[in-house]
C-alpha cells in the first residue's frame, strides 16, 4: 500500500508507518548502495565549492544524534536576489544504507503532500537520486557512498538557484574524495582520548568535573551528552568546564559523550559514576 492508497483508504499514518510506506514505494531494499567505501566526512563549509561563493552561508543546525549518522542543515541565500536553499548533509560512519535511512526520515517529517520517486537504475547523482517533487527546481536528493545530500529550494525571488548544478558539484566532490574501507581508525574522525569524572563516587546531589580531551583536526567540535541519574552542566565560572551533577537516586550513572566535528564525523565515549 503506497501513501496514495493509504489516503484513499482513510488510514491514519504515524511517521514510522509513513517511513515504511515510503521505503516500499521507493524500493529502498533494492537501492545499489556501496559497502565499505566510506567518504571520510563532508561539509559544505570546508572546501571551495562554487556555490559557496555565489551564496552566503547564513546558519546551520545539527540534528539530534539518534543513530550512527550525523545530520546537519546548512542554509544559504543571496540577499539581493532572494534566492535561497537549505542543504541537508547526512554522514554515516556505519553504512550507506544508514545514511539513506536518515535521508528518508527527513523526508517523512515534512508537511507537504508529495509522492517522491527514486532513480537507482541510471541515477544522474550518486548511487540513488531521489526527487520529492516532479519539479526538480524544488528539491533534489541523492546518496553517494555513506553521504546523503538533500537540497531544498527556499527562494522567494524570481531567480531560482540551480539545485541540480549545486547537487552535481557536491557529488563530484564526493566522487573525487578518497574513500576508506572503515572509518573506525580514520584520521578525519575525532578521537576522545579522555572522558572520565574527577570523582567516580558521588553522594546524591554531588558534583564532579568531567575530564575531557579530544583530538581533532576539524574544529569546531560539538559536545553532546547523554546521562542517567544526573545531569551534565557547563560551568561558566571555570572557563566552560563540563561537570556532572548527581540526581537524588543512588545507583550507577552512565555517561555518554558524543563529539561531532565540522565535517560531520563523530566519536563516542562512555564512563560511569557511582552515586552512593
Amino acid at each position: 500500500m503506497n501513501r496514495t492508497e493509504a489516503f484513499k483508504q482513510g488510514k491514519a499514518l504515524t511517521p514510522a508507518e509513513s517511513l515504511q510506506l515510503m521505503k516500499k514505494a521507493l524500493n529502498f531494499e533494492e537501492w545499489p548502495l556501496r559497502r565499505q567505501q566510506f567518504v571520510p566526512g563532508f561539509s559544505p563549509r570546508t572546501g571551495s565549492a562554487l556555490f559557496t561563493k555565489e551564496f552566503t552561508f547564513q546558519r546551520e543546525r545539527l540534528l539530534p544524534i539518534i543513530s550512527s549518522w550525523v545530520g546537519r542543515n546548512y542554509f544559504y541565500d543571496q540577499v539581493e536576489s532572494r534566492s535561497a536553499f537549505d542543504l541537508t548533509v547526512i554522514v554515516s560512519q556505519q553504512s550507506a544504507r544508514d545514511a539513506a535511512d536518515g535521508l528518508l526520515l527527513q523526508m517523512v517529517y515534512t508537511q507537504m503532500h508529495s509522492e517522491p520517486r527514486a532513480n537507482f537504475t541510471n541515477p544522474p547523482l550518486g548511487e540513488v537520486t531521489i526527487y520529492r517533487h516532479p519539479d526538480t527546481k524544488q528539491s533534489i536528493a541523492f546518496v553517494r557512498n555513506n553521504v546523503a545530500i538533500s537540497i531544498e529550494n527556499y527562494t522567494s525571488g524570481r531567480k531560482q538557484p540551480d539545485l541540480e548544478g549545486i547537487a552535481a558539484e557536491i557529488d563530484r566532490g564526493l566522487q573525487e574524495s578518497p574513500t576508506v574501507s572503515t572509518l573506525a581508525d580514520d584520521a578525519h574522525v575525532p578521537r576522545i582520548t579522555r572522558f572520565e569524572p574527577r570523582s567516580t563516587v558521588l553522594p546524591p546531589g554531588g558534583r564532579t568535573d568531567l575530564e575531557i580531551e579530544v583530538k581533532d583536526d576539524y574544529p569546531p567540535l560539538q559536545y553532546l551528552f547523554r546521562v542517567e541519574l544526573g545531569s551534565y552542566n557547563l560551568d561558566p565560572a571555570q572557563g566552560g568546564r563540563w561537570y556532572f551533577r548527581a540526581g537524588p537516586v543512588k545507583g550507577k550513572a552512565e555517561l555518554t559523550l558524543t563529539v561531532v566535528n565540522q565535517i560531520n564525523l563523530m566519536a563516542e565515549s562512555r564512563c560511569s559514576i557511582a552515586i552512593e
Partner: protein
Amino acid sequence: MRNDRPENGSRREEPACYIWITHIKFNYDESSLSNDAFNIRIDQLHDVPVPEWDQSKFRPEESPAAYAIKETAGHTVYIQCRFEMDPASAAATATVKATGGGILGAIDPITVNFVNGVSHDASHPGNQEYVQIPLRHRKFSAITREDISWEWLYKCPHSHVWHPMDIRTHHRIYVVLEQPPLPWSQTDAQRYPWTSALDYAIVSANTRGLSDAREAAARVVQHVNGEPLQYDIWGGRPFYYAGGFGGGTFMIAAWLAGFINGPIVNCYDCASAVTTFSNVLGCHLTYQFHGPFGYLDPVYPIGRGLCNNPFYGLRAAPYNVPLVGVDDAGRTSFGNHAYSKQAGNNYDACMRGAPGCATALAYYILGLLILILSLGAAATLAHLLFMRAAGFLVDLSQPDYESITLDTSTPAEALRDGGAPVPEALSI
C-alpha cells in the same frame, strides 16, 4: 557597618550577639514537591544548585525556586535555612524572623538552636545545620513569577529586642499549576523544568495570574502564533523539531535563544513549542501527529496571509499565491499536520482560523454574555471565546477544529483527508 536600629521604637542598644543567614534551601527534598519547591534547571547546560541562596547571591534570578499549586495544596511548605551566631557558644537559643517575602509571605518568629555558633535542627532528616522553617503565609493561587525579598531579623538569647541581620535576601519564585508533565521530568535531572522556559511561558506568554490550564495553554498558543515567525510555504519542513524513530525532539534551546535556526517554521515546530511551554506551566498537552491531513479551508498560517494553498512558495501560476479558488483541487495540501491536545481538545499555534464576521461577532457576544451573567466567575470561558473570535485555534473539539481548518467539501478533498491524530512522544 552593622545597623542596630531596633524595631517598634524600642531603644537603640548594641546587640548581645550577631546572627546572620548563610544559606537557604527551597528545594531541600528532590524526591518530593508537596512540602518544598520542585526540581528545576536554568536551561540545557546549567543546573540550579541547592542551596539556591548563599551569601554570594545578590540578584533574584540567581536564587530561583518553583512551586506547584496542586501538589502543595493542603500541605505546609517549608524552606531550610542555615544561620551562624557570633559569639559562638556550645549551645544557645535565639529567635529569627523575616519580613516581606511577597508570595512566600513573611516568616513568623521561630526558635533557632545553635551548636558551636551554627544553627542546628534535628527535626528533619536532612543536613541538621539547616533549620526547617514553615512558610505559613505563602499564597499560591495562580501561575506567577515574582521576585521576592526577605529582610531577616533576630533576637539574641534572653533578649526581647529584634535586630536586623543587615541582609535582605532576593529570590525569583515561580508558581505553576502542577508538576510539569512530559517532556519535562522530576526524575530525569536533565529534563527538570528550565527557568528560561518558565520565563517564556509565564512572562512572555503573559500567563501570570491564570489558574486554568485551558486558558494558560491558549495564551501560549496566542504567544507562539504571534512570534516573528513564518510558515514554510516552500515545503513545510521543521526547523525547531527533529523527527526520530518513535518520536521527535523540540530544539527548545534554539527557540529560546532568539530563533537561531531562522524565522521559518512548520506545524511540528509550533506544536512542540505549544506542548513544551504549556506543560512547563503544569498544563497537560500532548503532541499529536495527524496524517494524512488534507486540503485547507482558508486559514492564516503563522506569519502569513489568508491561505488555502499552503505551499505556494515554488509553485507555478496560478498556484503561486496563497489563496486560490475554493475547492480548487489543483492547490497544495497538508500531507500531515501536528498540533496539541489537552483533555481531548485541540490547540494549534501554527495557524489561525478565519471565522468570518458573523461567527466572530457571535463568539464576542456569547463571551460578553457569559462574563456579565456569571459576574466574572466564568471569565476563562469568556476569554477562550474571545480568542476563538480572533481566530485562535484553542480548546476546540476535534470536529470543531477540523471544521475550521480542513476542507472536505468535495469528493477529491475528502479523499485527501482521512487521517486521525495520534500522540507522538516529544523530548527536549
